[in-house]
């Protein structure tokens, strides 16, 4: 017979207000095997904790139930109390009689009865708990950062500066991400590249950062502290060490394709450098575009002919590099919502309907127009520009329900900068609300309105269409209720922020979850915002949710700190409530192997075997087993069965 102690917390009046805690303690005292039951005003307080440890020692308790608030809050607290008092922490369980009882009911007697049922079932559970020791694993002291945007750059630098090796993987030929495309940044209006490039250089020069551009994560296995990652290095066909950046090759390359850096507003050659300050500073041959590459019929090779240092090597092959890392930071960033989805705003039909990033390029001194704002169609200066916010955001019916967050600010910036370039022009902004939470943001928006006379119109645009050279914008001003028609020269859509292309596939490889909108899901919306649900994998930047630069950088440093917290350990400890196989019942049908989300189960000699380090203890295996031959420690079918009986008084 067990010796169980039950401790009922009043939580001031939070519990005692609705639940008759004295009665709960009294009833539980009658429960077979319960040798001690008491109530106290705040169990989590020092005196409360002392009560528990005192009782454990004096009454020789071997199991403890604390009936109090949700286990998410004080489970650790009380398990530590038990531990210090000499009990195995897994012999202490929490009965949640606050969040799931006292706070949600009014009828005192019914709430009390329910509290008793809940506590009883937990008593029956804990009595069947075994003492467990945490599982320990060594740590590979190296981090992988996926994505070379500002978030990835920041995370890499922070981890590297903490003294750990970092492998930074970037899909495109250069790091820098979208930030490198921006003209100026709100609310300070300092030049984006001017503040970004020093960090890019720092990355390139950092002794502990291994930069792998034009590379993609192919396969991830292993677990926190011990990931194995396969990285595919795509061939650039240019040897960066030999390349002198003379740019002769692009002059002779006959192929022109849209330049993704300029968001297609200009063209680039099949051999190209994404932008002058690209890191690594070297050229890349776009194998999809280059005729010399696969279609041997047109063996071009002009670039190779003019390349004096002979940096061009058509025989370069893709290579797969396998690396061991202890932690992973995912910073894969965002793309803009595909504008072709917004037919109502005439995108695609009209060259002068642009998205935010295209407008950034127009504004950028290094952009296609060298910083002059000209209409793509006729290179004329637009005198009337309409900015449309929430294009695709906050639109649950047709597009995306969420707010893309940064559009309010960058649209204000766009309008402002437009006015700085075109003094006699007029900027209109259609908005639903203006969300300018953030340091100096509100002031920034006011500046746009007051100093630069940007005209804000509250309402949605119903339609954009062309009428002899003008873009006619139909909208409603919901404040005045008036129909509005503006004949504009240019329309700029603040498109919704989407997770970058390929985020879903990557998430699958990493076995991390996505939220309903396709962004990477954090472990807890408030308390664990930079952790994924898979331990050892952290999130930074817009891949987790739309963010502006300071937020992305902040989160990146947070993720880095989390990663460092792991890398700085010699060994890691892992919850021991993992699956166990009862070999005599197991028939080796491998259903559990099939269902395990973590590939933690394998078959050896016809029986299932659990890798305790990989196992997260979800129990999906146990429900799939027809013979209860695999069970999660301390939450076995036996525990559940007895909990059911106890709470039903049967």
């Amino acid at each position, binding site marked *: 017979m067990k010796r169980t102690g039950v401790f009922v917390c009043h939580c001031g009046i939070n519990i005692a207000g609705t639940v008759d805690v004295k009665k709960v303690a009294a009833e539980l005292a*009658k*429960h*077979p095997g319960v040798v001690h039951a008491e109530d106290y005003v705040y169990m989590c307080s020092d005196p409360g904790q002392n009560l528990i440890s005192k009782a454990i020692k004096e009454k020789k308790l071997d199991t403890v139930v604390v009936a109090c608030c949700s286990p998410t809050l004080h489970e650790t607290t009380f398990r530590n109390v038990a531990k210090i008092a000499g009990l195995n922490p897994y012999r202490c369980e929490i009965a949640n009689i606050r969040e799931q009882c006292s706070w949600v009911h009014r009828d005192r007697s019914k709430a009390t009865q329910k509290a008793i049922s809940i506590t*009883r079932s937990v008593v*029956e559970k804990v009595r069947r708990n075994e003492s467990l020791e945490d599982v320990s694993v060594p740590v590979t002291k190296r981090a992988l950062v996926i994505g070379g945007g500002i978030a990835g750059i920041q995370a890499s630098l922070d981890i590297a500066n903490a003294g750990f090796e970092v492998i930074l993987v970037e899909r495109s030929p250069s790091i820098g991400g979208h930030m490198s495309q921006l003209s100026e940044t709100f609310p300070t209006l300092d030049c984006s590249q001017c503040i970004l490039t020093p960090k890019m250089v720092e990355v390139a020069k950092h002794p502990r950062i291994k930069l792998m551009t034009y590379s993609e994560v192919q396969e991830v296995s292993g677990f926190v502290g011990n990931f194995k990652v396969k990285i595919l290095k795509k061939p650039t066909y240019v040897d960066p060490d030999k390349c002198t950046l003379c740019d002769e090759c692009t002059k002779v390359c006959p192929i022109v394709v849209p330049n993704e850096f300029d968001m297609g507003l200009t063209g680039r050659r099949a051999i190209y450098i994404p932008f002058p300050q690209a890191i690594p500073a070297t050229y890349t041959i776009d194998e999809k575009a280059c005729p010399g590459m696969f279609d041997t019929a047109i063996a071009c090779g002009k670039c190779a002919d003019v390349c004096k240092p002979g940096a061009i090597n058509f025989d370069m092959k893709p290579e797969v590099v396998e690396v061991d890392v202890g932690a992973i930071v995912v910073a894969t960033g965002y793309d803009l919502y595909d504008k072709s989805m917004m037919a109502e705003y005439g995108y695609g039909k009209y060259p002068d309907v642009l998205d935010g990033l295209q407008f950034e390029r127009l504004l950028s001194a290094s952009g296609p127009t060298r910083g002059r704002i000209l209409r793509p169609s006729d290179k004329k200066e637009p005198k009337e520009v309409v900015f449309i916010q929430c294009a695709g955001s906050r639109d649950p019916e047709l597009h995306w329900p969420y707010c893309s967050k940064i559009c309010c600010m960058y649209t204000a910036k766009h309008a402002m900068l437009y006015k700085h370039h075109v003094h006699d022009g007029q900027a209109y902004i259609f908005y639903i609300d203006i969300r300018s939470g953030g340091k100096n943001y509100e002031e920034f928006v006011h500046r746009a309105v007051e100093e630069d006379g940007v005209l804000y119109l509250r309402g949605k645009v119903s339609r954009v269409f062309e009428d002899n050279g003008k873009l006619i914008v139909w909208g409603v001003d919901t404040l005045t209720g008036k129909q509005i028609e503006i004949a504009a020269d240019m329309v700029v859509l603040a498109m919704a922020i989407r997770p970058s292309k390929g985020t879903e596939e990557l998430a699958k490889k990493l076995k991390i979850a996505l939220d309903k909108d396709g962004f990477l899901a954090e472990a807890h919306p408030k308390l664990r915002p930079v952790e994924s649900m898979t331990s050892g994998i952290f999130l930074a930047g817009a891949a987790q949710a739309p963010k502006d630069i300071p937020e992305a950088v902040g989160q990146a440093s947070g993720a880095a700190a989390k990663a460092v917290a792991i890398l700085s350990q010699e060994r890691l400890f892992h919850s021991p409530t993992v699956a166990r196989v009862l070999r005599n019942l197991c028939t080796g049908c491998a259903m559990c192997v099939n269902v395990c989300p973590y590939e933690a189960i394998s078959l050896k000699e016809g029986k299932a075997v659990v890798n305790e380090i990989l196992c997260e203890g979800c129990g999906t295996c146990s429900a799939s087993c027809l013979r209860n031959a695999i069970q999660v420690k301390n939450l076995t079918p036996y525990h559940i069965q*007895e909990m059911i*009986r*106890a709470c039903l*008084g*049967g």
Partner: protein
Amino acid sequence: MEKIIQKSAFPQWLKSLQAFKIFLPKRASYGWELSSNHELQEIPEDYTYPVVPPKKLIFPQEEIFFEFEQNPEDGIKLKEILPEAEQQVIFGVRPCDGRAVKAMDLVFGGTYEDPYYWRRRRQTVLVGLACSQPPSENCFCLSVEGSPSSEEGLDILLTDLGDRYFVKAITEQGKSLLSAASSLFSEPGTRDREAREKIHLEAEKKIKRHLPSARELPERIKAIFDSDFWDEESLNCLRCGICTYLCPTCHCFDINDETKSLAPLKGRRVRTWDTCQFPDFTMHSSGHNPRPDRASRLRQRLSHKFLYFILLFDRFQCVGCGRCVTLCPVGIDIIEVLTRARNHGA
């Protein structure tokens, strides 16, 4: 005491037995069953015998011994539950099943009387019905010292003479059943007696299956106890409980505590049928199982019926009803097996 009752008067006889719970043969989806349904007024012409033998009315599949309850104040309290003493009459008991009850009496009686069994047994009157046709093509009662008109274990034996029954009251209990409605019964004439004799004799001739010199079996079984004979014979066995659960003489049981609630601890101790054919029947908590395979379990079943029981009570623990033969899903035929057992190595 020997009487005649017209079938037309049979329902009135039933009426006169209101003090009893009356069981009569009833056609069920799966065969014949003994039912206490009040509509029943007669024994149907085409009645053979019930799939589930009458043993279940005396030795039910579930028997509650006692209830227990524990509370902190005064420890554990026990409350014995004896079967509610309801008088019952079972009509249409075939002679083999009657003999089976006799065999059960030996098991549950003797030095220790099982109170639960006897409480029911003493309240039960068995009204037999002699077989004019063998109820099954696998009947072999003659080979195990029984007969289609055996009276052993019965209180009354009816013989169907077409429009009337020849009623022979064997025990006092049986006689009292007639006296309750004496007006319905007339004295049998010689014609009736002859008819009865004839039916009994012819019935014996109609029995197709035989297990010659069964009395030799105990020795033969001992002789081949350790041979691989049993492995061969049990190859088909599914280790199900049909042969034993539906055997009129099998009486093995299991006892379990069924807890109803934990706080306070409440529950009951229950006896249920069990069978030597289930692998867990002889399972030790150590994990050792003295009868690990189907061979040893088949051997046990036959040894119990044709060896141990004879040593104990000098009679077979098989009444030759043939149910196990008919109902075995894989055609394990006790008659064939025993015949082979007798010849094995001989």
